[in-house]
């Protein structure tokens, strides 16, 4: 699960969290017993229709502004380690 969430947890964290999460899931599991087969799920509480704006070009952030908070900007882009680092 930590791999899926891209979280590099330590052994100790994994152990502690496993205990905490089972306690929480035990509480949460109470809703599993409710018979809600005919109920529609709610993803959004306010009835809304999705609207699209007109596709009109407008000003966006200048590259140097967008890069200003980046930890490792280079050549007008975000630099990241190689996807295939040497072992």
């Amino acid at each position: 699960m930590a791999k899926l969430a891209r979280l590099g947890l330590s052994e100790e964290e994994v152990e502690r969290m496993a205990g905490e999460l089972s306690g929480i899931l035990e509480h949460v599991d109470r809703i599993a017993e409710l018979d809600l087969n005919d109920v529609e799920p709610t993803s959004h509480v306010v009835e809304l229709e999705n609207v699209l704006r007109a596709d009109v070009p407008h000003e966006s952030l200048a590259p140097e502004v967008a890069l200003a908070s980046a930890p490792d900007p280079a050549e007008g882009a975000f630099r990241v380690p190689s996807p295939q680092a040497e072992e």
Partner: protein
Amino acid sequence: MTELLALTALEAHRAMVAGELDAGEYADAWRRAAAGDELNAYLWRDEDSGPSPIAVERPSVAPIAVKDIFCTEGVPTTAGSRILEGYRPPYTATAVRKLIEAGAPILGKTNMDEFAMGSSNENSAYGPVLNPWDRERVPGGSSGGSAAAVAGGLAPWAIGTDTGGSIRQPAALCGIVGLKPTYGAISRYGMIAFASSLDQCGPFTRDVSDAALMLAILQGQDPCDSTSVGLPKPPSLPDRENLSGLRFGVPEDLASQVFDSGVRDVFEATLKKIESLGGEVDTVSLPHAEHGISAYYVIAPAEASSNLARYDGVRYGMRAPSSGDVIEMYEQTRAQGFGAEVKRRIMLGTYALSSGYYEAYYGQAQKVRTKIAADFKSAFDQVDFVVTPTSPSVAFKLGEKTADPLSMYLNDFFTVPMSLAGVPAISIPAGLAQPNDGGPELPVGFQIAAPAFAEQKLLSAAYALEQGIGFDARPPGAPGVSPSSAPYTARDQKRTGSGGGDGG
């Protein structure tokens, strides 16, 4: 100066408009008060009114403290997390922009539980906020800094966010007013996302009138937030004098709930007050509200695990040094950048959304949500408002609940159902009660919920009740305090350098 700081935001606004109060002098008095922060309420403060992307040219509205979850151009915005350390957003959140345009200078950015996950402010990467009533206790969370700043005389008012109670609960624990508006009433553009189907922005104020004033500034549809709809019309200032003709519903299972006896006493006294003001008190049935916490602690972490995927050390914030590939960089950055509670919720949410569990957890929780929303709909066929205590206890001690995440979650018992139903709810201070573990009396909040988009009606009733209750106790050092109502006069005298008034 104490007199200046004793004004409510509405009184100050009226005086500024009438030319009786110098706006610059007033804002500077508050800057000095904020500079005396001993509660760790602020993460960043505006030291002067010099040129800045968030400076206000002609102030005419009381200066405001802003929860550090709102992006502010050129000003540090951390959401209480290490992972956003050093981040200065290139744009300003709509809510903050509206306040600036209305003429409200920004006093500073307030401390909070990391990414708004918490009920005690102990999950901030920058240390907990202290409750101004008793510094050994929590201010509540997640908007603890905003609540403590207003209660402690470090800001005349503030904005925060509420996902499952993060405005109402800290307002209750700090003895001030906190309003969670209807989902969609206020734009969330530039408000760092936690659980997008629940997050909503709202005011922390000293009284209900100030909350109405701020809501009038903040509400409205925003092209930058497709979930924003605004209110049918901007709220006007409440002036209702009694509660006659209004029905208040108490959930019928409330009597069997476990909560502090002091909180129960204040709650029952408030119900009597409602009746003495001409209101009617009935019981209502919310049969699925008891499953609110379970549904909430599936939905909120699930949405958080998705929203927080963006913090990967690439575009903003910190990046952990790593010698490996890009995946290792992500994992290390997130391991070092996130605190324990955020990791816990990401894990919980990832699990709830994972293949094979999605229907059993997220799907089922969304169905419970449908039932809770339906419960409120039918309750509002019978009554005008649903009322509960805001929190099951008064402010608890720092460290008391940190070892047991579930006990912390159960704190949100009274506030989560309204969030799931998307309806507006306000917490107003209703009295003082002694904590179960002894010590001086602390504030108790009274929660009033109304149907969606019925903010005007909610504020009017809350105002009439507020006048009837006449709560005027203030923590030590806070402006507007009268010696007879100050519970900690002795400590008050020891307090120095706050600039926040001295009991006059």
